[in-house]
C-alpha cells in the first residue's frame, strides 16, 4: 500500500520537494570525490484533475527531468511524487502496473520514439498487449479508432515511421499514448521537432483530446505562446527551481518574477504598433556544475539586491494566489 498523503481530493498529481542530482564524472578510483550536478533543486507542483499545467523554461532548466522522474525513467534523489493519493515510487508489482497505465508520456522526438522496423499500428497497440494479453483483432480495431481520433487514417497505420511526415508521426505517438485511456498525459516538448505550420495543428489536437477525454495534462515546452494557448496554469523553471507558478491569466498578463517578465516580454507579438518594454537578459545560463550562490538568477537579474546572492528565495504565495520565488516580490516591493 502506498503512503496516503493528505491532499485535496481533486488533486491528481502532487510533487513535493523533488530533487534530482546526477553524478558528474565516472569514478575510476575509489578515493576520488564524487561531484554532482543538481538538476532539480526541490520543487513543488500540484495539478488538479482535468487541469492543464504548463512547465516552461529554457533548455537545461530541468523541466524534462521532472517528466522523467514522474515516469520513473530516473529515480528521484529526494522528495515525493504522489498520484491519486499514492506515492508513486513505493508502488510495486501489479498495483504499480495498473497505476502507471494511467500515466502516459509523449516524446519530443517522434522519429526516435518509434521503432523504425515495425508498422505504426502495431506500435500503437503494443501497450495493450503488454497489459492485457493478446487479442490482436480487437486491438487492431481499437487502434484504428484511436488513429482516426487523432486525425489519421487506417492506411497510415500500415506504414512504417519513415513513410510518414513529422506531424503524422507525432500523431501516432499521441495515439499510442491514448490507447490505454490514461487519465494523465505528460507531453515533453511534443511540438519542438515539428514544422511551425504543423505545430498549431498538433496543439489543437491536444486541446481536442483534453476536452473530449477530460485528461489531465502536463505540458512541457519552451514555447510560451503555445503554453498560454493550451494550459490553465503555468510553472516557470530556471536552473532547477520554480521561479513563478500560477494561473495563466495572471501570469501572462502580469508577470511578476524578473525572469518571467523577460521571457514573456520577449514573445513576439504580430502587431508592430504595440510597444513593450523588453528586458534583454545579460549573460548566459551559468553551468550547473557551479551554480551561483543564493538565488540562481541573481547574476542576470535586472533588479538584483545584495541579499539575492546570499540566500535562496522560497516559492511563496503572493496576494493574487500565484506563487513566486523572489525577494523583491515578497518583501513588499512590487514593480508595476
Amino acid at each position: 500500500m502506498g503512503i496516503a498523503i493528505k491532499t485535496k481530493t481533486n488533486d491528481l498529481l502532487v510533487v513535493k520537494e523533488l530533487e534530482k542530482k546526477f553524478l558528474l564524472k565516472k569514478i575510476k578510483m575509489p578515493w576520488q570525490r564524487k561531484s554532482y550536478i543538481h538538476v532539480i533543486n526541490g520543487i513543488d507542483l500540484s495539478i488538479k484533475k482535468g487541469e492543464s499545467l504548463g512547465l516552461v523554461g529554457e533548455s537545461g532548466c530541468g523541466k524534462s527531468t521532472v517528466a522523467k522522474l514522474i515516469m520513473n525513467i530516473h529515480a528521484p534523489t529526494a522528495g515525493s511524487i504522489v498520484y491519486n493519493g499514492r506515492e508513486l515510487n513505493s508502488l510495486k508489482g501489479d498495483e504499480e502496473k495498473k497505476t502507471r497505465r494511467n500515466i502516459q508520456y509523449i516524446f519530443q522526438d517522434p522519429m526516435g520514439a518509434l521503432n523504425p522496423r515495425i508498422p505504426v499500428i502495431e506500435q500503437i497497440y503494443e501497450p495493450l498487449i503488454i497489459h492485457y494479453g493478446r487479442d490482436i483483432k480487437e486491438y487492431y480495431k481499437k487502434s484504428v479508432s484511436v488513429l482516426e481520433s487523432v486525425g489519421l487514417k487506417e492506411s497510415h497505420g500500415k506504414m512504417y515511421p519513415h513513410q510518414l511526415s513529422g506531424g503524422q508521426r507525432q500523431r501516432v505517438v499521441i495515439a499510442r499514448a491514448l490507447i490505454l485511456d490514461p487519465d494523465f498525459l505528460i507531453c515533453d516538448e511534443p511540438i519542438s521537432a515539428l514544422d511551425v505550420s504543423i505545430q498549431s495543428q498538433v496543439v489543437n489536437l491536444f486541446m481536442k483530446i483534453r476536452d473530449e477525454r477530460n485528461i489531465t495534462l502536463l505540458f512541457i515546452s519552451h514555447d510560451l505562446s503555445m503554453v498560454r494557448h493550451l494550459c490553465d496554469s503555468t510553472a516557470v523553471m530556471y536552473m532547477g527551481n520554480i521561479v513563478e507558478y500560477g494561473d495563466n491569466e495572471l501570469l501572462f498578463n502580469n508577470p511578476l518574477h524578473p525572469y518571467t517578465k523577460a521571457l514573456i516580454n520577449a514573445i513576439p507579438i504580430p502587431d508592430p504598433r504595440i510597444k513593450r518594454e523588453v528586458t534583454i537578459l545579460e549573460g548566459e545560463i551559468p553551468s550547473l556544475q557551479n551554480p551561483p550562490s543564493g538565488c540562481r538568477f541573481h547574476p542576470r537579474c535586472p533588479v538584483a539586491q545584495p541579499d539575492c546572492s546570499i540566500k535562496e528565495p522560497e516559492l511563496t504565495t503572493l496576494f493574487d494566489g500565484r506563487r513566486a520565488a523572489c525577494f523583491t516580490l515578497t518583501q513588499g516591493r512590487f514593480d508595476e
Partner: protein
Amino acid sequence: MQDTITKNKRITTSPEGYRGKGLLVGIAAFWLLAMLFIGFTAPLIAPYDFQEMDLIARLLPPAWMDGGNVSHIFGTDAMGRDNLSRLFYSIRLSLLVAILGTLICAVIGSTIGFVAAHFRGVVDETVMMLVDFQASLPYMILALAVIAFFENNIFLFIGVMGMYGWEMYARFARGLALSAQEQGYVIAAKTFGASPIRIYLRHILPNVGNTLLVNMTLNFPKLIMLETSLSFLGLGIQPPNTSLGNLVGFGRDHILTAWWLVIIPAMTIFLTTLSMSILGDWTRDKLDPTLK
C-alpha cells in the same frame, strides 16, 4: 588521385562499379551453394563409403591422368580409399563444424554482450575485462592448450571452435544494446511497462541483427581456416572422421608422388574460404557499411 575525393569516387553504387563485382559475388555464392549441397547429400552422392579401403588400388591418380581409373575419379589415397568420397565427407564435416561453431559463437557472444549491457556495473566491467583479455591473446594458443590436452572429443572440439571470436560478438552486442537503450522507442516501451525480455527480443535484437549477421559472415571463413589448420596438424578432427584439413595433412606425406592428394582438398578449402570472404564483404557493404 585527387579525383578520389573531388569526384566522390566512393559511390560504389555506380553501375559499372557493380557489374564486375556482381559476377564475382555470383560465382562465390554458387560455389558455396555447391559446397552446401555436397555437404548435405554426401552420403547419397558419394560413390564409395569414405572408410572403404581397397589395398590393391592404393595411390591411384585421378581419372584423367596416366594410370587413372574411372571408378575413382579423383584417385585413391594411401589406404585405397576413394578420394572423391572422402572429399565429399570432409566437406560435410568441415562445413558442419564451421557452421555450428559460428552459430554457437554468435549466440554465446551476443548473449554475453547483452547481459553486460543490461546489468552494467560490476558485471559490465568484468565482461569487458574478459573481452580485452581474449582479444589480446592469439586464440591459437588457447585452443591448442585446451584441445590437445583433453581427450580428442569432437564435441569439445566444436565447443572450442564455437568460442573463436566470441569477444567480437560480445563487444558489438554490448555496444549496440547500450546505444539501443538510449533510443526513444526503447524508453517508450519501458514507460508502458514492457518487460526487459520483451524489449530485447522485440526492439533491440532486430536492430542489432544486421550487424550480427555481417559478423557471422566474416567469422565463418576464419573458423574454417582454424579447423582445417588444426586438423592438418593432427590436433583437430581425428580419424576415422575426416575433414578437409585431415586430407591435406595425410596427403602431405605423399606429396612427391601423389600431389593430387594435397592439391584437390587444398584448393577446395581455398575456394570455399575465398567465396565466403567475398560474400561476407558484399553482405557487409549492403547491410552495414560502418563495420570495417
